[in-house]
């Protein structure tokens, strides 16, 4: 299917600082795309350009086939949910939600009815006559969502919408966001730095770093087979193990030799192994350097005796007999290693 939004070679600089470097991306209709990355990765800038609040220094944005790069936010078929929600404090919740329709010239009765419907979808129709300051953070977030959805945008942009909420509320809102997106069918583009949030919500994860896309795809693939070292360490934790590729396409590392299809013979490369794939077993003797109890598991860091430069991360059962400074023996299944190209 043709993409709903096509981003071609988008670059942006603030003065001498380059924030986006020739980014290209396609967003499919009805999808939930998450832009994931640390601060300074350019994800918020990308969202601002999509929304029309910034003009990129190079590149194009096409929405439904039309070049919208220079189009003002008011004319663009996008709607944005801001980080601080930006609900108009002097208007009631109902008037807030109806605002976009009012700007389009929709008659009063009709726009208030539509506002009420949308508030029902987000579960807040009882708050129609209240003022924003009377609502909790989570409720305000839902009103902001309703206000943006009621104008039926082609794509909804969310700028770290759950950042201001506590953990419990965040998890709850994640479920609700996903449900609302499925129900309404609008494509969502959601910016966050929280990788758990990204995995919970996204059909399509886009991992960004320093103005570039490091990796993108379904969350399971990006987590299971990250393309770059950055993606491997930003999406979940990994132990990175350097090695040398031999003539037969195998990589030789301090912890063993493994099959490494796709790597150039004779080059230096890395593999990664996720902590949850490292178990207690007879393969790698090591000394424990750190144990952090996390309730359902223990996060263990150990130094292999045969490879003292490597800090091996393992996620061991909560009852595992490990102590700081003690010896432990670890193993992992070669099938679980992640081959990194850089």
């Amino acid at each position: 299917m043709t993409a709903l939004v096509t981003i071609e070679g988008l670059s942006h600089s603030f003065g001498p600082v380059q924030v986006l470097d020739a980014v290209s991306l396609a967003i499919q209709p009805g999808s939930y795309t998450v832009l994931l990355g640390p601060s300074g990765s350019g994800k918020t800038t990308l969202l601002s350009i999509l929304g029309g609040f910034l003009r990129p220094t190079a590149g194009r944005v096409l929405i439904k086939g039309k070049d919208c790069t220079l189009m003002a936010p008011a004319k663009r078929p996008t709607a944005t949910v801001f980080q601080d929600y930006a609900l108009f404090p002097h208007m009631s919740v109902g008037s807030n939600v109806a605002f976009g329709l009012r700007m389009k010239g929709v008659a009063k009765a009709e726009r208030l009815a539509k506002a009420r419907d949308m508030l029902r979808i987000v579960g807040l129709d009882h708050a129609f006559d209240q003022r924003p300051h009377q609502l909790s953070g989570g409720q305000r977030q839902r009103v902001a969502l309703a206000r943006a959805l009621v104008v039926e945008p082609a794509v909804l942009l969310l700028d770290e919408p759950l950042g201001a909420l506590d953990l419990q509320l965040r998890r709850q809102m994640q479920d609700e966001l996903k449900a609302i997106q499925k129900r309404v069918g609008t494509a969502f583009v959601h910016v966050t730095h929280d990788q758990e949030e990204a995995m919970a919500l996204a059909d399509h994860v886009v991992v960004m770093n320093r103005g570039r896309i490091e990796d993108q795809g379904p969350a399971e693939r990006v987590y299971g087979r990250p393309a770059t070292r950055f993606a491997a360490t930003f999406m979940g934790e990994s132990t990175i193990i350097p090695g040398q590729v031999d003539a037969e396409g195998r990589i030789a590392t301090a912890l063993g030799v493994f099959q490494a299809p796709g790597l150039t013979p004779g080059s230096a490369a890395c593999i990664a192994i996720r902590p949850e794939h490292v178990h207690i077993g007879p393969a790698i003797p090591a000394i424990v350097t750190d144990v952090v109890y996390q309730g359902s598991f223990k996060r263990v860091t150990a130094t292999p005796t045969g490879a003292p430069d490597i800090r091996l991360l393992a996620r061991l059962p909560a009852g595992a007999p490990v102590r700081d400074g003690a010896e432990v023996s670890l193993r992992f299944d070669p099938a679980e290693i992640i081959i990194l190209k850089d």
Partner: protein
Amino acid sequence: MSAAAQTRIGWASVTPALLWTLVFFVVPFAAMGVASLFPEGASGLSLANYTQFFANPSYWLALVNSLEVTTLVTIISILLAYPFAWILAFVVPERWQRLALMLAVLPFWTSYVVRSYSWLLVLAEKGAFNSALLQSGLLSDPVQLANTRAATIIGFVHFFVMLLTLTIYANLKQLSPNYRKAAADLGASPVQAFIHVILPLTLPGIMVGAFLTFVLAIGDYITPQILGGNNELLLPQLIMMQIGRRGDFASASALSIILMLVVSIAYLACARWLKIERA
């Protein structure tokens, strides 16, 4: 420390200020009220000063003039100050804003009396304004500006534009930039965003400035006296006349009370925008 001892310390701390306010503000005010009820030349308690106010057209006129002038000044100052405040808040680059504000406030570091006098210099028949217009050929005869209501209004507007710029600027800066973005995002043109979102949200700044303008202008003696002359009397001038020329404290007190009443009405009208609250 016991609760009683605590409260005692609290009282000890607030009493000096309370006493000062009581002795040097409340009591004099009451004294004034009492004095107004004992008119000069009458034999004891009487409302003569107040009835005289309504009976004597020139007294009544002074109040009307004051209200007209003050209202005009308030409206003109708001209209001139709002765009200026907007430019300072959104058009001037961030790092120059404090300097721009200080520059706007700087001329008001002159003495108030001196500033009104300076306007006289500008507006007088042989003053700078007329000279410039005559020289450039725009006028053939000098315009009578000094000693007119126009001069008083100009003098007032000069100060209150600055005051209103400050209150409106503070309000504008305090608004989240996302309000305008959200309004634009939802389809509002800049004009619509202004009318439906920004203007209502800056109403507190406007009302505080307008209230201050009204209260300060209506009670001001200097500007109308220096610039307006004695052709048209405003209420403060009338009051000073009672004290100065006639030594009639009773009458002056009554007029002052009436002035206070007008201000109180203005305060009640604006009360919801004027609250002093703790951080």
